[in-house]
């Protein structure tokens, strides 16, 4: 029996209202994201990559269609969305989006605090995540004291620390030089292979696309190509 996809989108569409003009950002999207996938949503600027990622991350709502998370329809229930985001989704932003008043350790620990993980269990998970991204020696540093690559590593640690079902990354290498971007990509590939963490990227970085197991190419808000590597 085929396992239930982690996330399934069924005929999902998204429209924006800009004054009296209606802009269709996405239309008729059908996607299934399987466990342990390493998916890239590719496309030119304005093709709808970020909108699709936002819908997958439940930080935006579709105007049509249905999103299923672990087989369960998410719907419009804000509390349910918050619970799924808190427990099952990690998010990595293009601009890192670390909380500046927290140090590295606190930024990574924050999702666990939200989940109610306390004491030594929390410490162990944070230390492990920091070790996985190679920043154990930077735990006391504030984000402003880190390089761009280090900040993105902290963001990755924050995303994986709670062992989410899926990590969504919005152009994670776009603000990094190619060498650092490569290191970050290698790290995420390693996490996917060793821990089985599911990753979904929005990117037009050929380096990321080359490593993808699944590539979804968008054009004008529609899926132009859906390719699963052999």
């Amino acid at each position: 029996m085929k396992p239930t996809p982690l996330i399934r989108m069924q005929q999902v569409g998204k429209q924006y209202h800009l004054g009296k003009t209606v802009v269709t950002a996405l239309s008729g999207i059908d996607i299934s994201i399987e466990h342990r996938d390493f998916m890239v949503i590719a496309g030119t600027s304005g093709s709808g990559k970020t909108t699709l990622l936002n819908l997958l991350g439940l930080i935006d709502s579709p105007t049509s269609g249905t999103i299923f998370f672990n087989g369960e329809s998410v719907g419009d229930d804000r509390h349910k969305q918050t619970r799924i985001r808190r427990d099952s989704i990690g998010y990595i932003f293009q601009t890192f989006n670390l909380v500046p008043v927290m140090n590295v350790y606190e930024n990574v620990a924050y999702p666990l605090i939200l989940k109610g993980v306390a004491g030594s269990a929390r410490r162990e998970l944070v230390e492990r995540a920091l070790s996985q991204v190679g920043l154990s020696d930077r735990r006391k540093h504030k984000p402003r004291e880190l390089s761009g690559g280090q900040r993105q590593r902290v963001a990755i640690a924050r995303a994986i620390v709670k062992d989410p079902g899926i990590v969504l990354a919005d152009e994670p290498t776009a603000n990094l030089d190619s060498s650092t971007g490569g290191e970050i990509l290698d790290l995420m590939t390693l996490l996917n292979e060793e821990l089985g963490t599911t990753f979904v990227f929005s990117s037009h970085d050929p380096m990321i696309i080359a490593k993808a197991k699944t590539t979804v190419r968008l054009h004008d808000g529609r899926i132009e190509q859906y390719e699963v590597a052999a």
Partner: protein
Amino acid sequence: MTFLLMGFRNLFRQKRRTATALMVITFGIGCLLLTMGHTAFIDWGLREQTIHSETGHLQLFNDRFFQKEEETILEFGIDDAEEIAASLQQFLEVQLVQSRISLMGLISNGDKSVAFIGDAIEPEKERQLRTMFADNGSARFDSLIVHRGEEVISLGAALARSLNVQYGDWVTLMTSTVDGALNAVDLRVVDTFRDGTVEYEKRAVNIPLPVARRLLMTDRVGKLIVTLDKTEHTLVLRDRIITWAAENGYGLTVKTWKEQAAYYRQVVQFFRQITGFISLILLIIVFFASVNTIVMALVERTREIGTLLSVGTSRAQTVMMFWCEGLLLGLIGSVLATLFALAVSALVNGADIMLPPAPGSSSGYPLSIRNEFAVFVRVAAATVVASGFSSLLPALRVTRMKIVDALGHI
């Protein structure tokens, strides 16, 4: 705890803005504390001055005095004043019991007659009463004490000027006796006094109690004044004395100093209204200082709010984070305001500054600030509540915020 800590750190991200808000709160609430401290000093000073110069803590009257209008003076006076006064000493809290008669009539120097209102007193005990809190004009009774047993009188300074009499001159006091007949007595002026109220000084006289009793042809007194060791014991002793009087068959009504001190009540009411108005204005200032800080923080941190929401922070938790900032702003402001008020009050109290007389008064009063812990706690609580509430209103915007819009905020 995490949100409180985050609130604290976020508060000092924009140091200059937070410092400005704290300065507004510190200065505003500090001034409020100083105003309330000065009002408390006036309240306390006036209370103790009233008690220890006029009312004592308790006043005992004949039961019928408040039930029916007297047709003649002392118709409803107290008969066994000396016996009751001696018995009241059994209460450990009772420090002093003295008798008084209030009387009125005409006073004349032979050429001119004017109306007077007077108190027949026990000068030694009046002197003692006025030294129990602070020396509150006790010297005005010295001459009456020196001339104990003589037919003497002390006049209000303005009355003495009006009658053009001086030490050693004679005046005639005329009033009706307890039977309604007219009676008069010649008394030698041995002193004049000032009482702080010009209008009162134009009519006031003090005479020894025995002289009044002879003039009124009675052994009764109008009331007994009971002074206690502490003002805080007033209500307890009132109840105990009422019980004691009932058990011993004395038909007495006991009034507290507050019931008898109309002027005190008016002054305190007046100051409370002023302080209440100032409090309201200053709390509004605190409210807006806090609102401004939190609104600016919200605008600047919209993207961060989006991030927190996207990693699973609930909207309620995000609102709580800003609420904590508001509470902390109020709390820190309250602590600084308290320190400010303590420092300024120490300076002011040490400077011995005298304020000019109030309207209708003939003497000034000290600019002094009485710091009361309960007032500090009340004001700090009000500040924290105002500041917390003011942060809650803008923070509620988070509940309507779309995460994608917040993340896209620049």
